[in-house]
């Protein structure tokens, strides 16, 4: 435990030191990045220890805060979430070191590094806190630190907007979480997690509050509105960290609360599956409709959180129907997807950052042909794209495979009406998978392949080593998890023990339902690589004896094809967008060509978030309006306010006596 606390203090000290050294960009960067690196290495030691079976660590110190205690604990579940946190924090920091230097002229780098380190430290504390007050304080620091990182480019109006949306959303979520803790702690008058007990009659209310509260951090639809605003606004390495791990603290919180709530009724699983399906399908559909690379990735986080929710939903369904195979496979898939998403989404955001760094824009339709200009970043992005589309042999396939397998076990074992829920999971995952592949062929194909569509893209350049290395490491880990899937899944056992209350043997036996097949998958995938090598060799041998020429792309005999004739991202996604237009409400502005020799014609489309436009905006307007009718109370005279206070006290006194 001491090592972990040491890591925390290193983070805090280095953050403050970076703040002090603000005047020198070099020192601020060195201190900021160095602190994260050192503390990640320090933190990984106990994390890995616990993950590989060491007993859990705990520290309970009293704290003068009412109901508070400095109670921290490192069990398998915490360690499981800490692992990607430390890994991604370190890699994103190394990347950010180079990425941020481009801003060194116009801005001080001390504050962003201070908030970055603070964000990492608060995430770690959230994951190990075992006292409600401590948890909420860490939760709040996390929200504020990330708010200041999101508003790094605060000169731009849309960034300020994004920050504001994020601040509102995160606090509405925090309010729900606070109520959850208060209700849980009421019975024994203590906010320590080990004294929490859920009153059975309130369990369902608590569940729904936790879904809303933690779900708004995680990005469950329709609470996801802040996500597509905030992630594109933040610097890319921060987006990677926020999307890769910060939103997962919401998943962590939800799972943690579930362990307090006792046996779940059937419909809880149904709720999570419903949320998973809406988040998954809507996330990927909205992603398809986006023209900004980082916004597209942000919507994909909503999609992947949906997949995680589907896994947890299948798991909960398993718990309530007493079916260990569903429980184990569902939770295992959902939780493994947490790590997998951290890896490939981190990778993709870093890749998007490299694109913006190299080409100066993230507008997909202004890019193209980057693969020739930045081959290294391109191949890393390609690996991330294959992984997030859930294609074998990369890691995305492994976690989706587990969830599918759980759902298919449900199809054969569950009674008719309940089986409909898992059928939803199967059809939903299949649709999400197909749409995600569509979206990432678009993202990679339009950005990296073809001819450059603008001068920016034509003059793009490869990022430096400090930016490339983290991307390569993340890409390699995507591949490794895919190929070592059986042992990776085996390592989930201690954590599943924590979550499911099943015995080690049961978990082992049910995980074997997946590890066996995954071994086959891994072996066959190696065969796939072998085949690729053989076929590539054959092709090379065949061509070595023949003439190979280069020519222009065949375009119906056009003599001079230009880059403007290429399919754009909007045109690529158009069939799917128009197919789902009843959900997307894409608005388009079209000026048609006029006259005999038309010169100008333009089409622009914009897809605004549905729940933002039709749910939250009207709701907030309504609340604002009804509250403004209370304006008459606010007269601006101090005497009146004192009167209010006195009256309130009087009422309370009477109420207390009566």
């Amino acid at each position, binding site marked *: 435990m001491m090592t972990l606390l040491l890591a925390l203090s290193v983070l805090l000290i280095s953050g403050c030191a970076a703040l002090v050294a603000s005047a020198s960009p070099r020192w601020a960067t060195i201190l900021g990045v160095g602190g994260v690196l050192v503390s990640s290495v320090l933190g990984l030691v106990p994390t890995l220890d616990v993950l590989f079976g060491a007993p859990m660590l705990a520290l309970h110190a009293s704290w003068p805060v009412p109901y508070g205690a400095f109670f921290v604990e490192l069990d398998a579940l915490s360690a499981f979430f800490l692992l990607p946190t430390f890994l991604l924090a370190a890699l994103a920091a190394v990347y950010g070191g180079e990425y941020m230097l481009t801003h060194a002229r116009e801005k001080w780098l001390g504050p962003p590094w201070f908030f970055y380190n603070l964000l990492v430290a608060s995430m770690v504390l959230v994951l190990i806190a075992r006292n409600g007050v401590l948890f909420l304080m860490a939760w709040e620091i996390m929200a504020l630190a990330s708010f200041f990182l999101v508003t790094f480019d605060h000169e731009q109006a849309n960034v300020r907007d994004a920050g504001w949306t994020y601040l509102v959303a995160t606090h509405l979520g925090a309010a729900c979480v606070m109520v959850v803790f208060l209700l849980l702690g009421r019975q024994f008058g203590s906010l320590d997690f080990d004294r929490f007990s859920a009153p059975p009659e309130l369990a369902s209310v608590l569940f729904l509050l936790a879904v809303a509260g933690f779900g708004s951090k995680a990005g469950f639809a329709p609470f996801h509105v802040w996500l597509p605003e905030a992630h594109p606004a933040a610097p890319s390495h921060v987006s990677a960290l926020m999307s890769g791990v910060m939103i997962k603290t919401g998943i962590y919180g939800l799972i943690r609360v579930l362990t307090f709530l006792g046996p779940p009724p059937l419909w809880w699983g149904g709720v999570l599956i419903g949320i998973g399906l809406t988040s998954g399908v809507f996330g990927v559909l909205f992603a398809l409709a986006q023209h900004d690379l980082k916004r597209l990735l942000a919507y994909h986080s909503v999609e992947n959180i949906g997949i995680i929710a589907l896994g947890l939903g299948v798991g909960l369904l398993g718990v309530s129907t007493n079916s260990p195979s569903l429980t184990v496979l569902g939770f295992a898939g959902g939780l493994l997807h947490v790590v997998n998403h951290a890896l490939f989404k981190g990778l993709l955001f870093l890749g998007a950052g490299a694109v913006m760094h190299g080409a100066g824009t993230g507008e997909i339709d202004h890019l193209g042909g980057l693969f020739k200009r930045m081959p290294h970043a391109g191949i890393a992005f390609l690996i991330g794209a294959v992984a997030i589309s859930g294609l074998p042999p990369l890691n995305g396939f492994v976690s989706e495979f587990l969830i599918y397998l759980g759902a298919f076990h449900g199809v054969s074992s569950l009674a008719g009406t309940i089986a409909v829920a898992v059928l939803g999971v199967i059809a939903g995952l299949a649709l999400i998978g197909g749409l995600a592949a569509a979206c990432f062929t678009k993202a990679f194909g339009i950005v990296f392949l073809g001819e450059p569509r603008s001068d920016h893209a034509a003059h793009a350049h490869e990022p430096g080593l400090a930016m490339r290395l983290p991307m390569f490491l993340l890409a390699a880990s995507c591949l490794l998890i895919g190929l070592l899937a059986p042992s990776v899944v085996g390592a989930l056992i201690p954590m599943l023990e924590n979550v499911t209350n099943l015995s080690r043997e049961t978990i082992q036996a049910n995980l074997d339902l997946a590890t066996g097949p995954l071994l086959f998958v891994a072996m066959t995938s190696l065969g796939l690589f072998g085949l690729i090598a053989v076929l590539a060799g054959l092709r090379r041998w065949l061509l070595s004896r023949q003439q190979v020429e280069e020519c222009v792309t065949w375009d119906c005999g056009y003599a001079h094809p230009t880059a403007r004739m*290429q399919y754009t991202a909007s045109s690529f996604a158009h069939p799917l967008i128009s197919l789902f237009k009843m959900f997307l409400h894409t608005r388009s502005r079209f000026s048609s060509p006029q006259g005999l020799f038309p010169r100008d014609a333009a089409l622009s489309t914009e897809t605004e978030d549905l729940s933002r436009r039709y749910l939250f905006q009207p709701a907030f307007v309504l609340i604002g309006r009804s509250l403004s009718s209370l304006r008459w109370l606010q007269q601006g005279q101090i005497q009146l306010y004192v009167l209010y206070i006195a009256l309130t006290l009087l009422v309370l006194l009477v109420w207390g006596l009566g």
Partner: protein
Amino acid sequence: MPLVPVLHLLLALGCAPLLVSIVRRTKALVAGRTGQPLLQPYRDLWKLLQKGAVYSRTTTWVFRAGPVVGLAAVLTALLVMPFGGARALVAFPGDFLFFAYLLGLLRFFTVLAALDTGSSFEGMGASREVTFSALAEPALFLGLAVIARQTDSLSLSTMLSGVTAEMWRQYGPALVLVSIGFMIVFLTENARIPVDDPTTHLELTMIHEVMVLDHSGPDLAYITYGSALKLWILGALLVGILAPVRSGSLWLDSGVACAAMIGVAIVTGLIESSMARLRLLYVPQLLVGAGVLSALALMLVLR
């Protein structure tokens, strides 16, 4: 005994182009032509392998990797697809997921290779391909869920060998619905009429052919052979349900399956001769229809 699956594997590798040939021959006969010789696809492949290649200057190595990864993915998918009621060479619970996603890998790289040329035609084909395949996927998985529930197994090998004449008697309606759903998936995935037209080279109206427009030489041979294999494996899936002869005798079962494969090819040819390609706007309705049929079949077996 691994001998039978290996024999079936060799059968697939050898006869897949023949299947394409049978489809073409059927269409020719219906149209009143003699049609090309049955071995023509093999000659085409052989000729393409001997040829040089022309590459667009726009392309990168993704374009060259497309056919290689695609063919490798189909070959790997072939390993888990059983034939004639026998086991496949590789069989494990959930192998159908691996199978479906390997086809996804093939599609992913074909689409990227198409986008790599920067041609608007190929972009158009790629865009249609991802649209239709995303809609075909749920139909395939729901149909497989029906079979999985009825046979209580999660591996293609046991699932398909579990479909017997007895099961047809009991759950005939559900299996008919699933078969129709799978037939639509089969036609879609193999770029057949009514979804796509494998013979036209009119870029505005087609999907698969336009995506491979810029490939030549051995690359085109890989693609052609890969799509023949894809026709074979998806046909084998259909045949596994439609020809439930499970006598236990290798020769009888395989013979019936082969005959059924030829039957599927002929039916495909007849469908292609008797109807026109759908307007692209209506294809999604067809695919959603396939999904609905699979879902209906599930309702029938779940009650």
